[in-house]
Each structure stands twice: as C-alpha cells, then as structure tokens.
C-alpha cells in the first residue's frame, strides 16, 4: 500500500501519466489558441501591407543598385587573390523576428565565410545591420564584430540610413582590401535567396588593369565615386532585405494562422467528445442511482 501511494505521488513529475483533460482545461486552451490566431492573422495583414509598399519601392532601387555595380562588372574588377588580407562582411537583416529563416540564412552564410577566410589566414571583420544578426553572431564570433546597427526594420529603409552605415564604416578605421554585402535577395512573394554583392577598395579599383580604359581619373574623384558606390550597394541590400523580410513574415504568419485553425478544429472535436462523455457519465450516475433505489 505504501508503494502504491508513493507511485501516485511521483507520477506527475515523470509526466507519463496524464489525466483526462477536463472541460475547463480544453476551454482555456481553445480560447488562448483563438487569441493567438487573431494575432497571427493581424500580423499577416500588417506584413502584407508593408510588403506591398516595400516591393513598390524596390523596383527603382534595383535599377539604381545595378547601375551602381555596373562599373565593377563591365570593367571586370577582381581583387588580386594573393594580396587580399583584410576582408569585410556587411550582414543585412533586421531587429524583428517571426519571419522564418531570414536571419539564420544570413548568419549561416556569414559563419561559413568567416570559417573559409580564417582557414586561409585572412583577417575578417563583420558589420551587423540588425539586432537579430548580432544576437546570432556575438556569442561564437564576437571578436570579428566591428559595428552593430540597431533600429532596423521598424520603418522602411531609405538612402540616409545607408549613408549613415557607410559613414560609420569609413570612419571606423578598418582598411579593408575586399568586402562583400550579404543580404536576402527578393525573388518572389514566397521565395528569397541569400545573396552576396562585392565591395572593392580604392586600391583594388585603381590598380585593376581595365581601369586604364577610363579616362582622366584622379584619386580624389575615384575616392568620392567609391564612397557613393558603397552607399548605393548598402542601400540596395537594405531594400531587398526588407522586402524579403516582409514577404517571409507574411508567409510565416499565414502558416501559423493555418496551424492554429487546425488545432482549433481538433480541440473543438475533443471538446465536444469530452462534453458528451461528461453528460453520459452524469446520466449513468443518475440512472444507476435510481436503479439502486
């Protein structure tokens, strides 16, 4: 008898024996899931509105950004493999979560890049645009982080945001030879892809062989041009990233709402079954009580 009572005492802790859920438990659960479904539905609406606006602003931004990179593509500027020792990675995400694999995709790419570059003996520093990226990177790669940018994602990004980031980068004193911007490129409402765009230093550009074709360029003009191009690339990355993020959040909240409605359906069935079981039990008690008389 002692053993039986002690087993009854221990069972809730090992959690393998569950009592039949009462009507009240199911009602509480049902109400909370319905509230969550309302919240995810409204988040989806908000994300859809923000996505529509971001996509509209992305069209001119893409033309602008590809125009800025046209020089590097047409002049086929590549960093010389041997001389490149200092790398810079700019990772673009945002501050807010609940958007699927947006932040983890960029963080994974950055971690791979850091592993490759430090494996071949190069120095790498990372600039985080967005708090989520900082959270993902600072524990394992904290010593590679150069700058963190917060308050990203609340409002749609504009050109002055990109120029603030570029100014901080240039005044940070880190002279990089080669760099890349890692962001999520928007492909469609349901798909995005983690992409990289290159950043070149002034030395790389001026010593590239095809640059001789370009007439009459002095160091000052080249420096101004490079600074402007840097801002343009960052701007493009910010715009693409924000559009991808809003579309991913829309998709994520949509699936969350669907899952919630599935759970509601299942729970409603369980609720009805439980209710019928309770009624049946009461009837049986009454009838057996009456029969006993």
């Amino acid at each position: 008898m002692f053993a039986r009572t002690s087993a009854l005492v221990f069972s809730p802790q090992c959690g393998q024996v569950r009592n039949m859920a009462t009507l009240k438990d199911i009602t509480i659960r049902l109400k909370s899931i319905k509230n969550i479904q309302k919240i995810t539905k409204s988040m989806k609406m908000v994300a859809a509105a923000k996505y529509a606006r971001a996509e509209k602003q992305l069209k001119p931004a893409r033309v602008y950004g590809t125009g800025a990179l046209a020089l590097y593509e047409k002049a086929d500027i590549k960093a010389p493999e041997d001389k490149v020792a200092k790398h810079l990675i700019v990772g673009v995400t945002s501050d807010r979560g609940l958007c699927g694999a947006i932040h983890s995709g960029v963080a994974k790419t950055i971690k791979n890049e850091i592993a490759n570059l430090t494996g071949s003996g190069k120095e790498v520093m990372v600039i985080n645009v967005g708090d989520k990226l900082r959270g993902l990177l600072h524990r394992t790669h904290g010593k590679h982080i150069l700058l963190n940018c917060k308050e990203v994602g609340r409002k749609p990004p504009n050109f002055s945001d990109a120029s603030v980031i570029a100014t901080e980068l240039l005044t940070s004193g880190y002279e990089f030879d080669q760099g890349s911007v890692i962001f999520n490129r928007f492909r469609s409402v349901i798909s995005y892809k983690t992409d990289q765009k290159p950043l070149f230093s002034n030395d790389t550009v001026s010593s590239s062989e095809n640059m001789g074709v370009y007439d009459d360029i002095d160091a000052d003009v080249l420096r101004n041009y490079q600074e402007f191009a840097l801002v343009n690339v960052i701007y493009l990355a910010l715009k693409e990233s924000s559009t991808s993020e809003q579309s991913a959040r829309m998709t994520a909240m949509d699936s969350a709402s669907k899952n919630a409605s599935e759970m509601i359906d299942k729970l409603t069935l369980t609720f009805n079954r439980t209710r019928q079981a309770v009624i049946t039990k009461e009837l049986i008690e009454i009838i057996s009580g009456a029969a006993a008389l």
Partner: protein
Amino acid sequence: MLAARLFRRALPVLRQARSYADAASGAPQMSFTFASPTQVFFREASVKQVDVPTLTGVFGILPAHVPTLQVLRPGVVTVFNDDGSSAKYFVSSGSVTVNADSSVQLLAEEAVPLDQLDVTAARANLEKAQSELVGTADEAVRAEVQISIEANEAIVKALE
C-alpha cells in the same frame, strides 16, 4: 514582268545598302540609365546626348564617348532624346559612369524635373543659408551651410 525582273535585280543592291546602314549606327548606341534611389527616369534608354554638371565642369556625353568616371555637382542635367526634344532635371549630387560599351549610368542622390522647383523658395533658402554662413564659425556646420549655398545658387541659376 520586265519591271519585276529589274526590281528583283535592284533589290539585292538595296538590301546590301540597308545592312551597311545598320552596321554604322549599331555600335555607338548609348544605353542611358538615369535614376535616383526612389525614382527611375531613364532605364537603358537610347538618347542622343546628355549634359551633366560634374566637379570638373559640365560634360556633354554622346554615344562612343571615352570611358570615364565622374562625380556630380549640384546642377542641371539635360537629356536630349533621339527625336530632338530635351528634358531638364536638377540633381543634388551623385556619380556618372561612361563605360567602354557606350553605356552611361547616371546615379543621382536626389533628382527632380526642373519644373517642379520653385524659384522663390530657392531664393529664400539661399538668403537664409548665406546669413547662416556669416553667423557660424564651427567647421562642420560651415561646410554644411556652404553645400546648401552651392545647391541653392545652382537651383536659382537654373530656374532663371
């Protein structure tokens, strides 16, 4: 029928002449892209000439211009279309790239068509900036005010 035979013999000559004409005008076609971060004005369009204000002076860019990179100054960009009409825009700053394949990318930080600018507001801003310049001694603030003066002067000059 005689006319048809003559026609047939004449046709190859015509066709040859036509192909020569294509080759001559095919190469120096300018693919002109003019955009600001929020708006695209021209996207790989074919235009006759573009005048841009740069730090080293006003450039006229025609197809087959020598490749160059330039930084813009506040001023007026004039685009001459193939049909002879021209459009003027005011740009604040930016860069222009002329590549070897005759493509031109004009990227301006801010660009507006000239008819959207108000000359009285520009004059008022210019006077305010000039009075601010006299008042301050801080280097950074002076530099900003001087940029404002330069931009407003250019606007006023463009609209007059």
